[in-house]
């Protein structure tokens, strides 16, 4: 599905990523942990095609090579604050050509607690609601590959569980997922494989079973990597 080959990036004269190799198969979820400034977001942006790496290549093997087979959600929510919830969704559906029926939309809006506020402008929504609306776009985009940067920011336990449940549903439908987060428990609960990025180097890459939450916390605290 997605292959990152020897990606390195110097960003305003500072090396942010050094020779990162990463592969993601169809329907697989890869979660990337790492301290702040390790280059996680940059790697995600390069995978999304938003940024071009200084060296290395991004290979994307999907049926259609257009951008619409990928969907990236960054720190920012990417919403039109002046438009209402429904207007944002309808516009998003128009341009991605994804045809979710009104009933599906109603159901997912209800599940995300946005149905009552569907006709309010986004700027009046709480931070958590905006984040859920932003994530919702990912779920209805019909993309084969979802790239999520700190998806859970601003969400409490209850919503995290619903989002994780939705992500598991997408994985069953064969959607691949590349996620960056510092929430280890949530990350592990969805990931098939995890990776640890430090100072632009992918120090560790292994299956979720091969490592425990404690070990990751230990490594992140600066312990030695096996």
């Amino acid at each position, binding site marked *: 599905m997605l292959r990152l080959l020897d990606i390195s990036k110097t960003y*305003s*004269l*500072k*090396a942010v990523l050094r020779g990162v190799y990463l592969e993601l198969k169809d329907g697989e979820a890869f979660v990337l942990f790492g301290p702040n400034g390790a280059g996680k977001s940059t790697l995600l942006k390069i995978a999304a095609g938003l940024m*071009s790496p200084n060296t290395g290549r991004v290979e994307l093997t999907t049926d259609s090579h257009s951008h619409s087979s990928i969907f990236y959600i960054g720190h920012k929510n990417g919403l039109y604050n002046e438009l209402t919830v429904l207007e944002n969704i309808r516009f998003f559906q128009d341009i991605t050509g994804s045809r979710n029926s009104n009933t599906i939309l109603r159901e997912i809006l209800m599940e995300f607690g946005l149905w009552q506020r569907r006709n309010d402008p986004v700027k009046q929504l709480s931070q958590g609601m905006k984040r859920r609306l932003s994530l919702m776009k990912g779920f209805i985009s019909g993309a084969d590959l979802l790239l999520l940067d700190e998806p859970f920011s601003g969400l409490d336990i209850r919503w995290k569980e619903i989002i994780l449940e939705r992500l598991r549903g997408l994985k069953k439908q064969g959607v691949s997922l590349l996620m960056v987060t510092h929430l280890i428990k949530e990350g592990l609960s969805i990931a098939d494989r995890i990776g640890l990025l430090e100072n632009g180097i992918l120090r560790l890459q292994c299956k979720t079973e091969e490592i425990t939450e404690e070990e990751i916390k230990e490594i992140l605290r600066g312990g030695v990597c096996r």
Partner: protein
Amino acid sequence: MKKDRITKILLVLVLLMLPVNFYLIFQVAPTERIMGDVQRIFYLHVSLAISAYIGFGVLFVSSIMFLIKKNLYWDTLAYSAGEVGLMFSTLVLITGSFWARPVWNVWWTWDPRLVTMLILWFIYIGYFMLRKSISERLKKARYSAIIGILGFLDVPVVRLATKWWRSIHPRLSKEGGGLDPLMIKVMLFSLLTFVVFTIVIIIFRFRVAWAEERLYSILNEMEEYHE
């Protein structure tokens, strides 16, 4: 390095041509019947205009190359040439009014060629303002390349528009071709001198800019080394 040899040759060439050019303009070229000696500004004024256009032309080409190659080498060449072009275009405007004053006792003439140069001057003031307003190096290069390209395209259109708008440029320079043949030879030599001279200055300015860019990247590398 091969490039150094070429610049050395050009430098020697310029050092020879400049005094000869000076001598030709003031000693050899005949005095113009109507305007008298002041007409000799004409050689300098037109040569400076050519130099300005070379500067902006190099900026135009290297902006395109930067967008294609994404290598900061081209961006450095772009703003170096742009700076040289801006300097020369300022001089064109100044010498233009120095010429207009004695001949038509007016400080500024709305002649199509001068207006085109004035508009171009404003465009590249905008170019450097845009560069100064963006901090991130790569975005600064990318955005200024767009002005570098679009600005240069304005030249033919503005030239055409102002030509129809109003032109009181002296008939003389229009019949530049019909002028005394000796004058034309002197003019051609002066143009050639300034073409070579502009290229040498652009290379020199580029050297300085490239050294600065490398210095800043070394310094940044150093800071990281100390971390």
